[in-house]
């Protein structure tokens, strides 16, 4: 295996496929939501709900995060990939396994589910081999690297429980109770997705919105609180506790992201760059969905049934959509319009920089198209949450269709960033010239 030197960014052909394939997971999740049946509003563990959750979390968000870690680790955190070839194999494995995994949930084929889950664990192992060295500044205590390091551990823990649950569904070792399902889900959503996005936001939000006057003040304590709540809370949930314990766990789980949200708001309000681009807008919208997620999560934890079943399915469904599609999803969409254009710039234009005029990152993506994606996705998320809370299947399905449309637009706009030629913009930056934007 060849070690990539620190500071040498990964190849465009390595990172771009992760970003381009990720919206397919969202499109798949949106389609499954569009084909919801009555079970979706009655049981949170209905096959189609489990299928759409995994399509969104593993197919969309996790795929995008893989690309982000492969890029940001060497580029920003000073780490290195163990092997670029391994990362390419990883993409192939993950892109192959996820559709199969989602299909086994849709069909509720527990035998094939076990095989697909094993393939998914292989994908995570391939990722972790590269990801830990990629966030190489962990030893120096950089805040984003500490968050990413913790989230990688949580990914391994979540996958461990996931493969166990898949095994017990097939071999009937013990029942997968609602509590065990909730524990696995929260380890993944808060421990893996939440920590990753929080850590990446600590790096990218100040960097791209130019925050100089303020620094994060509580990043370390928030990390400790979130890790403790995700791990401890996830394990407690697996014991199927009563409503008051669930509420205490929900409050503990909400505390870290809530404090992070306040800190992020503080940083964003202190930004020097007053005009918001799509990444800045997405950060604010995402923070709004974080508030919705926390409120719905606390209500759902109380456990008052709002549907004929024994679980508050509508609240749980609305909570899940707000957290996955709203908070985490919109943060990822916004950041993808910075990470991918920068990567394209770096590989196409860095050798020309200072020699002849080159475009800036803003010339490489269409701000209008990116805002359209953000608007369609945000609307789809709101409609889907409303459909879940109102218990209206048609509204829920409409939300699913809008999310699919947003995913298609997102994929086209990302493909345009990678594939389209970008004319240098002589008016912007040239030798001896200073950017004014």
């Amino acid at each position, binding site marked *: 295996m060849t070690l990539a030197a620190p500071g040498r960014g990964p190849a465009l052909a390595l990172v771009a496929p992760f970003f381009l394939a990720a919206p397919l997971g969202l499109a798949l999740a949106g389609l499954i939501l569009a084909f919801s049946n009555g079970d979706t509003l009655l049981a949170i563990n209905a096959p189609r709900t489990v299928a759409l959750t995994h399509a969104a979390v593993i197919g969309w968000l996790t795929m995008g995060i893989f690309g982000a870690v492969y890029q940001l680790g*060497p580029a920003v955190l000073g780490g290195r990939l163990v092997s670029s070839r391994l990362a390419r194999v990883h993409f192939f494995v993950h892109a192959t396994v996820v559709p199969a995994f989602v299909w086994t949930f849709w069909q509720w084929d527990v035998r094939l589910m076990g095989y697909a889950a094993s393939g998914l664990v292989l994908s995570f192992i391939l990722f972790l081999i590269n990801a830990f060295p990629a966030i190489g500044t962990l030893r120096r205590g950089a805040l984003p690297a500490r968050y990413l390091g913790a989230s990688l551990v949580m990914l391994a823990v979540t996958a461990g429980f996931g493969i166990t649950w898949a095994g017990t569904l097939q071999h009937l070792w013990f029942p997968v109770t609602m509590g065990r399902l909730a524990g696995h889900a929260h380890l993944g959503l808060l421990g893996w997705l939440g920590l990753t996005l929080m850590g990446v936001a600590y790096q990218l939000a100040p960097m791209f919105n130019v925050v100089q006057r303020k620094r994060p003040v509580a990043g370390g304590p928030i990390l400790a609180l979130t890790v403790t709540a995700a791990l401890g809370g996830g394990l407690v949930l697996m014991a199927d506790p009563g409503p008051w314990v669930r509420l205490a766990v929900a409050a503990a789980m909400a505390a870290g992201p809530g404090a992070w949200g306040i800190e992020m708001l503080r940083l964003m309000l202190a930004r020097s760059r007053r005009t918001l681009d799509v990444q800045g807008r997405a950060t604010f919208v995402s923070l709004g969905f974080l508030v919705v997620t926390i409120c719905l999560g606390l209500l759902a934890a109380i456990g008052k049934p709002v549907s004929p079943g024994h679980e508050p399915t509508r609240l749980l469904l609305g909570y899940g959509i707000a957290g996955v599609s709203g908070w985490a999803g919109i943060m990822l969409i916004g950041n993808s319009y910075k990470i991918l254009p920068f990567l394209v710039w770096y590989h196409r234009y860095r050798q020309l920089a200072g020699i002849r005029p080159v475009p800036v990152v803003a010339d490489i993506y269409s701000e209008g198209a990116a805002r359209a994606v953000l608007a369609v996705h945000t609307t789809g998320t709101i409609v889907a949450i409303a459909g879940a809370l109102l218990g209206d299947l048609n509204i829920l399905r409409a939300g699913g269709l809008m999310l699919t449309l947003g995913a298609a637009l997102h994929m086209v706009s990302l493909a345009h960033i990678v594939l389209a030629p970008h004319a240098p913009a002589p008016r912007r*930056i040239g030798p001896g010239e200073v950017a004014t934007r």
Partner: protein
Amino acid sequence: MATIQLDNRGLQPPEPMVRILAALGSLAADDEVVALMDREPHLLYPELERRGFTWEFDGRDEAFVLTVRRVTA
């Protein structure tokens, strides 16, 4: 020996990299570029190396300082 000073704080990537590379074009053998940075520019280093420059990065204080010089034989 002349020093070209750049304040690259408060600029979005990749603008700091572009400004430094632009300044290097007029750098004489004994001159140096001293740039104030918001963060360590990991991806700039391979390009400096390719163009025949050496660098020192001081990341001890809040204002990070990058110093770039031509590689002397």
